[in-house]
């Protein structure tokens, strides 16, 4: 055997040995967790881009206490959240809107579980005026989105804002292109405050927006912030969990007229005040609109942030994992602590609503 041949053999032997080692290395990490396979569960959460920032904080916090659990979060819009929870693709469909009654009748196993209370900002980009807070009302917004009010210096807007130098410039109304809980609660505000809107467009996660030349569709709350920033003289509706981004983009936030006629910003006090009046009206399945609630200090666009979950999960391990996560999320000592909710400007569920949510969470089984 020549030296060269021997060298070739040797390298081949080395090669085989090294691949053996490599194969063992490849297999090993797969073997290790399978020893714990029974308690390792992956939950897929998808939907609301308003709830998404909070869910990411929750997952990071919760996984410290239960290392076996994996939670994947996606910001896809409430429409997708509901659709994928119905289809069984996602275990938790995050939504700012509750599932409609006809859809519930088709899918009686769905639970609509409030996790926290959120609110919505009406945001505008008016050069020179973004520092203050314009006053706007449901009928004025319905006029803007319905095409009856087309210029910022329209008498209807001027009447609400005496002394403000409103620009003589066309309004660019923005709406969501994807199925969105923000569209749902915004159009509910327009519907409940303006009968004309209720009778023509009404509300939903997507609506048939009146034909507005110049109106723009954007995708997701991040898309709304960006599009508002890029378009001077535009107006949009954006969830409060994006307050930081709204401020960073230098946009203005409107004071909205509530049912009692007062103009308010979404703050802990005004959102709490709006929620308190609705506690006793919340039914057992917790599907209720909190929009345009009565009360002098009640902010008009607030909503329960729902986890849409099927009460029939694929396995008991999965059901248990979801129950654990959601129970922790509504716990004031857990996910509903100020350290989590303050970051996204949500407020925790009132005690009575939390108890109702827990009762629904307990129904999740296999």
């Amino acid at each position, binding site marked *: 055997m020549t030296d060269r041949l021997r060298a070739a053999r040797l390298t081949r032997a080395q090669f085989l040995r090294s691949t053996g080692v490599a194969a063992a290395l490849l297999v090993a990490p797969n073997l290790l967790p399978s020893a714990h396979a029974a308690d390792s569960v992956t939950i897929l959460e998808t939907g609301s881009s308003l709830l998404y920032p909070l869910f990411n904080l929750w997952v990071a916090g919760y996984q410290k206490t239960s290392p076996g659990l994996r939670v994947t979060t996606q910001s896809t819009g409430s429409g997708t959240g509901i659709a994928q929870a119905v289809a069984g693709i996602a275990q938790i469909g995050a939504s700012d809107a509750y599932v409609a009654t006809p859809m519930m009748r088709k899918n009686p196993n769905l639970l609509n579980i409030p996790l926290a209370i959120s609110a919505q900002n009406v945001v505008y980009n008016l050069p020179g005026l973004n520092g203050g807070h314009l006053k706007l009302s449901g009928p004025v917004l319905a006029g803007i989105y319905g095409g009856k009010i087309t210029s910022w210096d329209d008498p209807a807007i001027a009447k609400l804002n005496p002394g403000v130098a409103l620009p003589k410039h066309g309004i660019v109304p923005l709406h969501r292109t994807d199925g969105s809980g923000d569209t749902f609660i915004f159009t509910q505000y327009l519907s409940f405050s303006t009968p004309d809107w209720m009778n023509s467009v009404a509300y939903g996660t*997507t609506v048939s927006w009146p034909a507005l030349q110049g109106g723009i569709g*954007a995708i997701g709350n991040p898309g709304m912030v960006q599009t508002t920033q890029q378009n001077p003289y535009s107006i949009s509706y954006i969830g409060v969990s994006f307050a930081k981004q709204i401020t960073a983009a230098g946009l203005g936030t409107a004071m909205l007229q509530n049912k009692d006629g007062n103009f308010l910003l979404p703050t802990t006090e005004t959102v709490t005040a709006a929620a308190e009046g609705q506690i006793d009206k919340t039914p057992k399945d917790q599907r209720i609109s909190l929009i345009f609630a009565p009360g002098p200090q009640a902010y008009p666009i607030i909503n329960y942030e729902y986890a849409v979950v099927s009460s029939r999960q694929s396995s008991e391990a999965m059901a248990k994992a979801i129950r654990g996560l959601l129970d922790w999320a509504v716990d004031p000592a857990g996910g509903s602590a100020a350290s989590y909710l303050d970051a996204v400007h949500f407020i925790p569920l009132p005690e009575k609503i939390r108890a109702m949510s827990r009762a629904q969470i307990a129904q999740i089984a296999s």
Partner: protein
Amino acid sequence: MIGTPAGVTSEGVARPGVGSRRIRSGVGPGPFRLALLGLAAIIPLVIVAVLLFLLIYAWPAIRFNGLGFLFTKTWDLGNLYADPVPKHGVLAPIGAQYGSLVFVAGTLLSSGIALLIAVPVSLGISIFLAEGVGAKFRTPFAIVVEMLAVVPSVVYGLWGVTVLVPLVAHVFAPAIAAVLGFIPFFGASGGGGFGLLAASLVLALMVIPIITITVYDALTRVPREAKEAAYALGTTKFEMVSRTMLPMVRPAIIGAVILGLGRALGETMAVLMVSGGALNYLPHSIMSPISTMASFILSQLDSAEQDPSGLAVQSLAEIAIVLFVITVLVNAVARLLVRSGSNARG
């Protein structure tokens, strides 16, 4: 049709009739041939199956919408929070009506403008590559163009949102309004950059490499004898390219344009990201927001799935049928053009 610019190969070189007949008889009637036939049949069968499935699935919507589907502008899911009621023989949400005109118009306009931009640019690039540069630069240049063709569309979309849309809003729109403002469709600004022009530009960028590569390929196959003959007759380089080379690759150009148009008509993600998502109205200027059929199907599917009657999803399927038919028609017309082109020459 597209990959082989049939008109280019000179008669003397290729005798496809003789060669292919010999090969075909060589395969014989045995099981091998049957297996090949089975494989070859998969494609047409799949196409027919998809169309059939769509037709069956969308049938309630086709009945509900009637012919008005093609000519009305309103897309309204109706009240999904009340129970569906019977109308036109199917259960439908109250107030539901579906019209596809906005999306058909958005698709045809954006693809058409994209081609108006892309075709001259692509021809210019491909002629430059084939005739304008030496071999040293030709190959790296061609590789770069080919790489552009394989960039995923969402990358174009992201670039469109972050770079192109502000550019359109602050540079292109004022410039177009200033220069072409007297023409009705070019006057108005607004839309904030999202809309027909941005969508067309993104589509043009996606289509340019496809057309360029195909035409460049064909140009390099023009026989040297033809070029030399033209020069011998005393033509300038410009005349040689425009009178000799371009007519010879005409079928390849048409094929390339159709290939590009096919991509533009069906493009979904990139268009969705920059089109501004128009609903219920037709564009009144080149800056207006639009929606295309493909991008609308994508963006509305999740909302449509919340319709308990199922009519919303079925109506989206009907849009898919319309898109399917338009694409097939475009291809058929292209084939006719290519055939008449070769006939005219022969």
